[in-house]
């Protein structure tokens, strides 16, 4: 029974991702500058070469036919060839995905730890000075453009995951603080407090279970946020990851590359979100 449900879940996941790929491809197809190559401005090329250059992307014009071809390729394990970089997409992915996955994973971990570590004391032991301080720190970080953060780290030196962490952190901080505050004022927590339970016990037994579902929902969101932040950061820091690849795909109107990246990111987002949903639901079913 649960296998059937899992399979159905996976199927929906896959179909959504493929739909995402198609939508992403359509968005690019409709955007200006599709099928245009920068080399067209090279004055050394003669008319025949220019014609060939312009024709080379013609098979991408009909987006449905392109996508059908792409799907056929996928079944045979072929992700296509990136026209702007002139290399197979699978090769590009296997080179670059580890870089991004690592920095995103680390960044997420650091961001969550930081956000939570700052939010919790403020909620457990209320004090306006701490509140103000953390708000201002969070405020400052959220105001810094990720590009500026990346630059700063480049100059000062430091791990590439830290800018990602700093992009994710303010949101986590604010949400978790507000949520925790709200949870602490719920009747059953107040009752527990009045009974004189230990603060750790209150936190672990009463507060966290109630706050878990929305927090877990945030996990899924923070994954896609971290990926979004990885693009400018990788571009500025010149780290050869998926984020930079996505940027190159966008600027070069590289359809095969973009479709693959969209599907990849969609799959990742969906997996992270359904994962947090599942756990969240499990929590919600527990009586609090």
């Amino acid at each position, binding site marked *: 029974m649960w296998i059937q449900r899992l399979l159905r879940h996976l199927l929906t996941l896959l179909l959504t991702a493929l739909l995402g790929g198609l939508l992403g491809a359509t968005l690019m197809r409709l*955007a200006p500058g599709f099928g245009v190559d920068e080399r067209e401005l090279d004055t050394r090329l003669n008319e025949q070469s220019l014609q060939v250059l312009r024709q080379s992307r013609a098979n991408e014009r009909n987006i449905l036919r392109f996508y059908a071809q792409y799907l056929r390729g996928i079944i045979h394990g072929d992700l296509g060839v990136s026209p702007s970089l002139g290399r197979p997409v699978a090769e590009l992915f296997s080179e670059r995905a580890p870089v991004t996955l690592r920095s995103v994973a680390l960044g997420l971990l650091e961001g969550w730890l930081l956000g939570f570590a700052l939010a919790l004391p403020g909620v457990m032991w209320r004090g306006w000075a701490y509140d103000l301080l953390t708000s201002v720190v969070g405020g400052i970080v959220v105001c810094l453009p990720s590009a500026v953060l990346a630059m700063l780290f480049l100059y000062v030196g430091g791990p590439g995951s830290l800018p990602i962490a700093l992009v994710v952190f303010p949101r986590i901080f604010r949400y978790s603080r507000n949520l925790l*505050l709200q949870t602490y004022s719920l009747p059953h927590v107040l009752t527990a407090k009045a009974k004189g339970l230990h603060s750790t016990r209150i936190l672990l037994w009463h507060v966290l279970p109630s706050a878990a579902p929305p927090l877990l929902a945030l996990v899924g969101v923070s994954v896609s946020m971290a990926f979004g932040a990885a693009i400018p950061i990788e571009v500025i820091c010149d780290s050869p990851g998926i984020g930079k690849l996505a940027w190159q795909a966008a600027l070069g109107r590289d359809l095969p590359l973009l479709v693959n990246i*969209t599907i990849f990111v969609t799959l990742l987002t969906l997996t992270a979100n359904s994962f947090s949903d599942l756990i969240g639901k499990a929590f919600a079913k527990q009586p609090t």
Partner: protein
Amino acid sequence: MKTLRLLAWGFLLSIFVATLLAEFVAPAPYAEQFRESPNALPSWQHPLGTDELGRDALSRLLYGSRVSLLLAPAAALLATLIAALVGGVAGYLGGWWERVAMGATDLSLSLPWLFLLLTVRAMLPLNEPPMTSVVITFALLGLLGWSPSARVVCAGTRTLRNSEFVLQARACGCRGWRLLLRQVLPNLKPVLYAQFWVSIPIFILSEANLGILGLGVAEPLPSWGNLLRGLENYSAVLNNPWRVAPLGLLIIVVSCFQLILPLEDFRS
């Protein structure tokens, strides 16, 4: 805390008035180039110095604040409203509705919306006044920026749906939309506020990033976004520390916002 909030109010109000009266307060028109003194140090004539083209930095900051301070919160409000609607309804109705809505949210989180912005820019005439294109850019940001919050709102609603007071309300005969609007949504306020305040600087910054693609505010109109882009030139900032002024103002404004409408609302 109370005095701080009053101070924050006072500060925001004075900024707001100053930007509205920019024509009278600003030392020079924001687009005028004093070509004899590019990159000038602060002086009586130019209290915050001048930029690379010799334009008065204070005037640009004032006019830029007008653009960003009006449009970014509007976009954030739009995004939060959509998120509340999508997330709230999905979480409240649950089941099939929720799955479809969250699927759509996930999709919209991972799609390259950049191309939609490019397409919209391409459809606008080239001779459009800069102000129109800014408004359209921010409107699009607002329309597209709802998805991260929708998920969280949905999860929050789901928890509330099963909570005791909603059950009580239900037992008292409160049902359907009335229950959603009267009982559930008001309790989502803290989540929505957090979303709203975080979105404001994010939209201001997205506009700056879009500028790199030519989708931001067009010259010569200033915005916090394109003023902040100046910060990427690290060494120029080191040499002229007052270039940080737009960032400082942005931070203070965001902090003020956070002080004015923080968590007290649901505690009472």
